[in-house]
């Protein structure tokens, strides 16, 4: 088809596709799925960290964490808005999340068990997210690319804050250092899994690359993350929970042990330790808030009617 060819030509020429432009239905669908999944991840991602706002050990840390979780909500908003430009409503997307039809990043189905987890999430989870997301700032769909630019700027700020927490802990009391090590032990492998299955097994790889929605392979990004992160852990004086980890001088890369893809699959399918808690919390917020949203609508309707009456009268 000519339109498809022209569309691909525009992408190949690094032009941005905008909502008013024609696009193949598959491109639209893939983007809706990916952007909404990303938005859901931001929103569900508020829960594990939100869990520690009330217990943050200093007022400064409390403020920083609260602002961070708030930023994540903001990211959710940008991304829902970007997806809405593709003709899907936020309401629809939220219902897909709550029904289980839509996914979110399974990293958020692990629990936050200590304050160090707030550091580890910032350092590792946000770190991995940035690695994944920076390329998307150059993706072919304009609204998504622009939302990601904004998000990436904030995320790298979050990542530094997370690392700073880890640094403080690993320079702190023996208990604090232990807390930091324990958090690293629990978050390291799930962070590596955030890059998705090995490229050979990845489903949406080739087409995504052609559409410039996906710009690098999972394994390449994962390797890059490992290469950046291992020296950071060394600087913290913490031990990576991977006995096979070693530096390959020749290749200039850190080689790491085998990832437990069975765990990955189980968690993606909803078997994560706190997956039920996460969905329960989201569903409860949605259900308990129904009367509020209804009231806001009803009030807006009343105001509209009154204004109309005034104009008419």
């Amino acid at each position, binding site marked *: 088809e000519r339109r498809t060819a022209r569309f691909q030509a525009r992408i190949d020429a690094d032009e941005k596709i905008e909502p008013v432009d024609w696009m193949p239905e598959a491109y639209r669908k893939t983007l809706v799925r990916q952007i909404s999944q990303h938005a859901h991840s931001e929103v569900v991602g508020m829960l594990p960290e939100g869990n520690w*706002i009330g217990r943050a050990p200093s*007022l400064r840390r409390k403020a920083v964490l609260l602002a961070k979780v708030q930023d994540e909500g903001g990211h959710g908003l940008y991304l829902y808005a970007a997806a809405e430009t593709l003709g899907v409503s936020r309401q629809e997307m939220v219902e897909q999340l709550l029904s289980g039809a839509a996914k979110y990043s399974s990293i958020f189905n692990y629990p936050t068990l200590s304050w160090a987890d707030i550091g580890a999430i910032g350092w590792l989870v946000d770190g991995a997210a940035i690695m994944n997301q920076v390329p998307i700032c150059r993706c072919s769909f304009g609204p998504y690319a622009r939302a990601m630019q904004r998000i990436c700027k904030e995320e790298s700020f979050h990542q530094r804050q997370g690392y700073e927490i880890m640094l403080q802990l690993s320079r702190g009391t023996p208990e604090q250092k232990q807390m930091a090590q324990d958090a690293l032990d629990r978050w390291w492998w799930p962070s590596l899994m955030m890059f998705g299955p090995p490229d050979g097994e990845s489903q949406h790889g080739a087409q995504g690359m052609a559409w410039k929605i996906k710009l690098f392979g999972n394994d390449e990004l994962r390797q890059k993350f490992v290469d950046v992160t291992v020296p950071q852990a060394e600087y913290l004086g913490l031990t990576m929970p991977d006995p096979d980890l070693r530096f390959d001088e020749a290749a200039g890369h850190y080689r790491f042990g085998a990832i437990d893809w069975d765990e990955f699959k189980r968690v993606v399918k909803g078997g994560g330790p706190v997956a039920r808690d996460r969905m329960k919390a989201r569903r409860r917020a949605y259900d308990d*808030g129904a009367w509020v949203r209804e009231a806001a609508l009803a009030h807006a309707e009343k105001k509209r009617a009154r204004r109309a009456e005034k104009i008419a009268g």
Partner: protein
Amino acid sequence: MADTDLADRLKAERIALALRLGDTSLILAQRLSAWCGHAPELELDLALSNVALDLLGEARMLLTYAGELEGKGRDEDRLAYFRNTPEFRNVLLVEQPNEDFAVTIVRQFLFDAWHLELATALTGSADPRLAEIAAKTVKEARYHRKFSTDWMIRLGDGTAESHDRVQAALDDLWIYTGELFVSDATDAALAAAGIAPDPASLETPWQGFMDAALAEATLAKPQGAYMQAGGRDGHHSEHLDYILAEMQVLARAHPDARW
């Protein structure tokens, strides 16, 4: 020198004031931040967090100042994390539970209307540090009051359910508003010295604002309730101890740690 004079004058009273206001904003920030991730819609997650962040910021400035006045080396964290329940000086209103969004908004509305009046008056404080903090607070409190008032109107003049919920919350929380306007010897001394307004002087404008906003929200102002007080003197309800148990647990488990 005038500064030295002020630094000594009414020091205990100024410490008491800074703790009362600082604790009040701190505890409300703690309550509000529990909504983060659980609000009726994403925009409300952000808005409630915003208010919490502003209040937390104000609390930090006030507690820091209280610690400096006291001169015993207690910083904001020492004061926030290592005082026990009876040492907290917040008003009872802010320690009341979040319950549902109606209760949260009513609590906020009652508080914001008072907070703005108070902060406005404090911008003219003879204590330059309090005046400076208040100047920052006024801008934030004005936005807060608009936010909570808009929601009072939306809920009051929304559906039958929202009206009933918000009216019930108003009836329940009204008994904690009297404490906002109680004047004791501390207040009298501070008022006489031009450091803080007499709390009683804030009531008339506050009531005026209530009348107007509640009318627009189609809500009835509660009448003849027995007012509860005591929080400002450390006599709290049963809720505060639970708030502090959570807020302080980690800091207290590692008393010598830095974070």
